[in-house]
């Protein structure tokens, strides 16, 4: 069988959690609200209504682009994407076509090797990050015995950022890691809940397969929609790769089309083929003047970007001598990382003796409830515990010797290979020391002395 290679690109939509919608003053916090209660003439596309862009949303889009290493062109504009659909009240979506806010970025991903030790780094290029508006939502229901389609416009006009990668991804795992990382960056910036269940982050992989020896991109691609988790994205990609390989092995080039993901069956199904592909008749949105950034506006936005996960991990490893594992876990949630640093700050301020590693352990392994336990309290808890271990080694040595002398049978048992005997001896040491020593330390010392 010839050696095939998948070619995968991703399109990701992220709903921004700005206070108001993209082009009007309606609240963008629509989830779970009664239908058509977050609407006005603008987001309903009523005759004569005009869009006024949400500055915050545009800035956030640019900041996301910057976080993804994009170039921010000085000139950008909105365009109209024309198509008819009942959830699209104006008959066009305000989007960006040829001059998006952000272009040419990249995101580095790390993939664990098969032996779980090696790490492979890879750069996934970002083609563009642009701003657009969300559509309304169709609900198909039965009302008074009649099958009807209902439209809820609450979501109409909610700011949406679209991130498009280059087709640099080669495996479904790479795709999954990329998506998780992007999700992480978005969450860090605090610009979206990026909650896939609620649809505030939507994934559309573009998949094709070619011969490994073929340097060109395949002559077709399949876009998969309706995916609402990273794992489903992985599954859908794998399903498609296998499907394409089967077809290609039979000498058939898969059809260029849009497919949907059927979660229950774990399969994709055809939605729209290339022949039905739309001509969106993009043209510049005449209702919104183009955006021209000044250098100071750009640098000002850049300065507002928080420390991103990669930078934080590196800093945690450098400044606090943490292992990569600890640094990764601590920085997974921005709040956890902040909590950790708060504790560290106080320890340093009070010239405390607690190490970063200990704090990390308390947060990671002992799962300190950071929402309830204040940093002061955590320090107190750690200190109390560690005071128990403040007994000097000499003192401990004395006690261990005493215990050994008092329990010759147990010593003999241990020497005979009964491991449980050591546990008994440890228990005796703990009793003598009233629990003031570390169990592991006591165990080690006992073993050494036997």
């Amino acid at each position, binding site marked *: 069988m010839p050696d095939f290679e998948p070619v995968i690109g991703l399109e990701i939509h992220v709903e921004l959690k700005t206070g108001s919608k993209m082009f009007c003053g309606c609240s963008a916090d629509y989830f779970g609200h009664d239908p058509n209660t977050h609407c006005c*003439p603008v987001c309903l*596309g*009523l*005759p*004569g*209504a*005009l*869009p*006024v*862009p949400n500055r915050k949303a545009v800035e956030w889009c640019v900041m996301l682009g910057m976080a993804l290493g994009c170039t921010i062109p000085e000139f950008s504009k909105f365009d*109209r994407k*024309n198509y*008819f659909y*009942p959830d699209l*009240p*104006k*008959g*066009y979506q305000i989007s960006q076509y040829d001059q998006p806010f952000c272009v040419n970025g990249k995101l580095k991903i790390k993939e664990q090797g098969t032996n779980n030790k090696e790490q492979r780094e890879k750069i996934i290029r970002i083609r563009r990050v642009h701003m657009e508006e969300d559509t309304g939502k169709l609900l198909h229901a039965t009302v008074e015995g009649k099958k009807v389609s209902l*439209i809820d416009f609450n979501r109409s006009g909610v700011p949406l950022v679209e991130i498009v990668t280059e087709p640099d991804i080669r495996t479904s795992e790479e795709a999954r890691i990329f998506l998780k990382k992007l999700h992480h960056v978005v969450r860090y910036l605090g610009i979206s809940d990026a909650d896939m269940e609620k649809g505030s982050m939507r994934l559309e992989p573009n998949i094709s397969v070619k011969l490994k020896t073929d340097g060109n991109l395949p002559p077709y691609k399949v876009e998969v929609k309706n995916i609402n988790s990273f794992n489903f994205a992985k599954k859908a990609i794998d399903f498609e790769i296998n499907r394409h390989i089967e077809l290609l092995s039979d000498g058939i080039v898969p059809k260029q089309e849009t497919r949907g993901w059927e979660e229950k069956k774990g399969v994709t199904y055809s939605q729209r083929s290339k022949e039905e592909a739309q*001509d969106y*008749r*993009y*043209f510049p949105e*005449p*209702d*919104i*003047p183009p955006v021209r950034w000044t250098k100071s506006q750009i640098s000002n936005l850049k300065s507002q970007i928080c420390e991103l996960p990669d930078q934080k991990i590196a800093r945690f490893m450098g400044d606090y001598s943490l292992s990569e594992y600890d640094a990764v876990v601590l920085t997974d949630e921005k709040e956890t990382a902040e909590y950790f640093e708060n504790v560290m700050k106080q320890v340093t301020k009070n010239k405390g003796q607690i190490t970063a590693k200990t704090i990390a352990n308390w947060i990671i392994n002992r799962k300190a409830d950071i929402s309830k336990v204040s940093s002061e309290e955590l320090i107190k808890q750690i200190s109390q515990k560690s005071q128990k271990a403040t007994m000097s080694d000499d003192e401990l040595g004395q006690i261990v010797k005493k215990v050994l002398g008092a329990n010759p049978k147990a010593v003999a048992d241990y020497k005979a290979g009964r491991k449980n005997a050591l546990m008994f001896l440890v228990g005796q040491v703990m009793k003598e020391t009233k629990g003031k020593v570390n169990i592991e330390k006591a165990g080690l010392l006992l073993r050494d002395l036997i």
Partner: protein
Amino acid sequence: MLPENIKVILWWTQFLRISMLLEKSIKELASGLKEKKFSSEDLVRECYENIEKLNPVLNVFVTLRDKDEVIKEAREKDKKTPVNSLLYGLPFVIKDSYNTKGIRTTASSKVLETYIPPYNATVYQKLLDAGAILIGKTNMDAWGHGASSENTDFGPVRNPWDNSRVAGGSSGGNAAAIAARMAVFGIGEDTGGSIRNPSGWCNITGLKVTYGRVSRYGCIAYVSSFDTVGPMARTAEDCAIILQVTAGKDPLDATSSPEEVPDYGSRLNGDIKGMTIGMPKECYGEGVDNEIKSLIYKAAEQYAKLGVEIKEISMPMLEYGVPVYYLIGTSETSSNLARYDGIRYGNGRNKFTSETMRRIMLGTYALSAGYYDAYYKKAQQGRTLFIKEYAKAFTQCDAILMPIEPMPATKLGELIGDPVKNMLADIFTCQTPVGIPSLAVPVGFTKSNLPVGMQLLGNMFSEPLLLKLGYFYQKVTDWHKKSNL
């Protein structure tokens, strides 16, 4: 005996005409109201008298407000302490393309036959805040698609000067209403001549403002990047007063300009001596009615007498105006009308008129993959050249003097029956892609007593200059005072 009687009747007619309140300027009306020489109710009653008498033939309104309701409103205004505006208590009309909360708004299309908007257009709200009183929503070419007010689902508007002819368009209802003294003023909308054309053909004064000068919020879009919201009234001075109320940045319209709003009234004063008016030779060649040419030459002579230098200039690009305008215009309108998809406004797309369908098809084609570069993009490049052409012209003169239309008001059916002729009629008014303002001013009548207007064009935001030129001309002429009542 009989001749004597006729004389008496003629005298009375003359007297009634002169005594008609609606012959007064806005300034005179405002001071009369203030001094309680007459009331807002008197004005409203006079409007309705004319409407009852003339509207059955002229067909000015798509939606006329209930007379008693309006009179009640006027009475309330008469009782209240007026807000500090010259428009307080004055009856006006507005083109049916403007959203008026609770009052049907159709853009003269069956598609919106029963549409009652839940919000007000900014311009309408500003007039309400100033205390002006709406009489009704005026008939127009549906969606602004036309220059004759025949492309309407509510019957064509007829010209008050000759009922067998059209009023012009697309703001034809407004022009006819003001010419027939059914209101003190009107708010029109000019995309490619829609204020100036009917103003010229109905003998009123109309101002196409600079793009962005007045908020478009709530104005049903024809061509979003050309649409402008302007006053239509009897004089340049009236237009200045109305513009004072309507102009300015609107947070609801991202394309409205932050450019400061000058005091248009006080800028009418001073002098026009030493100014230069350019007359592009391309506007006075073949294809333009000789009577129109000679009336505009006479207007130029009048300006010369006022100390203005008249200069011939050349604008060879002008002939490309129609294609540039109609490619961008139809492209945008094809998109702007997409929202009328049959789902939400009661009627479907099959209710568009054939003229509107033609424009949607043309625009859809111009934007389609494979044609975009050849049509839409080319037209945008043409637009840039146009902007340069006008910028160059304005280095040679302060204002440009042109005819509005190549011919006087056409017969009913003449334009609507010939789509290409209909488009070509916009030759002098389709410089809207440039965004500059233009004032239409009456300059006399043809031998068959049809009104003729001229237009004065100026640089971006030169409304004060254009209004001043119009004001000075109207101080020494009385064409604008004539009506056919």
